[in-house]
């Protein structure tokens, strides 16, 4: 990694919901232009951590810096640098895909000309008939594509994707990761949470979260070599097993 400030810097991040500790002092960096995979079973604290990074969830303690900006001190400025796609793709089911795109472009403050350009661009990727359907009636794979398009419209440098491939068929997943790679080549920084372990191979680095704690971090190959494991699944299972016994 270079000496430049990381795109995302997380230090001793904690989140308590009453007496329940959802995230227990997590620290990591995401360098600019990196794809980082956030792995962990359901309830590990992935979404909570991502939401604290975006400022959507109040931090109990610790710090998050986005390109050097403290999310608590400069939430609006930090958010302008980020794009976020939630688990449910965050589209309005009663609006058509095109209406969703126009709406999110509009509230992002994009000028009418820019909005039209975006609409023209999505038309190159998806058939007009599909785009004119209500989002609730289109398949998850296309919904995911539209949600990703919406997320990228304001042209953020840092993209946080919360389980973007859940409920999507394998072919759509493969195509999706192609797009992620395309974004990396454009210099975008990506933090992608997933519980599909095979997706770890697409990442430059992986972070394994379990019960709110970061239990492993590093490049997938390096982690496998260091731990002497054959594949990510074995690494993941053993890491969780070992952590559970501690």
């Amino acid at each position, binding site marked *: 990694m270079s000496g430049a400030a990381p795109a995302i810097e997380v230090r001793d991040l904690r989140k308590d919901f009453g007496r329940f500790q959802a995230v227990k002092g997590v620290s990591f960096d995401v360098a600019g232009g990196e794809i980082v995979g956030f792995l962990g079973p359901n309830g590990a604290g992935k979404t909570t951590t991502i939401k604290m990074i975006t400022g959507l969830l109040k931090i109990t303690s610790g710090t998050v810096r986005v390109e050097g900006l403290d999310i608590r001190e400069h939430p609006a400025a930090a958010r302008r640098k980020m794009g976020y796609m939630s688990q449910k793709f*965050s589209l309005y089911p009663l609006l058509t895909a095109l209406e969703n795109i126009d709406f999110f472009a509009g509230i992002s403050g994009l000028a009418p000309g820019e909005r039209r350009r975006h609409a023209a661009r999505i038309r190159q990727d998806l058939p007009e008939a599909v785009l004119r359907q209500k989002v609730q009636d289109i398949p998850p794979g296309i919904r995911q594509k539209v949600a990703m398009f919406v997320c990228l419209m304001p042209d953020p440098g840092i993209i946080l994707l919360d389980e973007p491939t859940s409920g999507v068929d394998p072919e759509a997943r493969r195509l999706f990761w192609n797009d992620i790679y395309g974004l990396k080549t454009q210099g975008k920084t990506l933090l992608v949470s997933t519980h599909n372990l095979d997706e770890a191979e697409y990442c430059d680095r992986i972070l394994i979260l379990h019960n709110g704690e970061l239990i492993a971090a590093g490049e997938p190959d390096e982690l496998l070599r260091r731990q002497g494991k054959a594949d990510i699944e074995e690494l993941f299972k053993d890491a969780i097993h070992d952590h559970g016994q501690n």
Partner: protein
Amino acid sequence: MKLRHLVKKELIEVVRQKELLFLMLVSPVIQIIVLGYVVSSDIRNVPVGIVNLSGGQAATRVIERVRRSPLFNVRFESARNEDSLDRLKKGEVKTVIVFRDALDRKRGASAYPEVQVLMDGIDANTAMIASGYFSGIIKGYILDDMEKKGRGLPVAARPLFRFNPQLRGINTMGPGIVAFLLTIITLFMTSTSLVREKEQQTLDTLLMSPLGALEIYVGKALPAILVGLVDMLIGLAVVVLWFGIPFRGGVPVLFLAALVYLTAILSYALLISVLSSTAQQAMFFSWFSLIIFLLMSGFFTPVDNIPYPLRLLADVNPMRYLVQIIREIFLKGNGIAYFWKELLAMGAIAVTLVSISLLNFKRFISK
């Protein structure tokens, strides 16, 4: 203007939900017509029984008046007093009127019979009103009789009912129903609005956008205000055209009152939405609130009848002021000069609710 996009989105969502659209446009008409006929204090065809133990003409004439009155439906007439109480118990009649000759100590039988009215007190409202109607019949008979005999009463009250001369219950209820309509649609629509965004996780995307908390808040309230005002117009048309209720006041002042009221009620609805975890919870809480608002609004019974400390709750109920203002506009043709205090009270409630609601909304989005 980013807010415009949010308002447009909200309106598209309303239009796309056919069931909701039906509820908003057609149900007000049905509700007003049904409520207009059902929720009325007018009493007609009260089933009565008559027991005539009097041999005098006075009793016969009063009975004739009772028979002719559309307010009473004479179910039986008997010269014996045996089973009248039993019929009252069975619910065959609500009232039994017993005429018997009053005993005049000097002359034997009196010129006027003694009248006993047995009422079924379970339906206290009907009993009270029917009792009043019957007293009116007796009083009318006595006055006519005395006039015939060339004698007048030393004091006679001749009430003149202004603003609602025929004392039509629907004239009082109709404007109140407009206030009710303004509440029901907007309260339900808005209270589920934010919580639905939470459930869909679209709220996260909204919050990640450059839209500020105030813009989101206003963007949620504006479409509901629009829908509320459209509903109010529909309601107005129905009560005026269908029920023939006079509208003597000005439309602009009615809209002003409605706007102040909607600000209050929508802030309350947004507060419900912020505090609820699911749309179901929000719906339940809205129902609960609506019933409290309605019962404490003077819609059914005068607010003055509400005892302390519940009266304090009625005083902070915005619907109470709107019901009063709408009735004044409709029936008396009053302007702001007559109800500025109520308007001010409603405005103060609106400002308080907006502050509490906005504060909670800001706290909620940064939790």
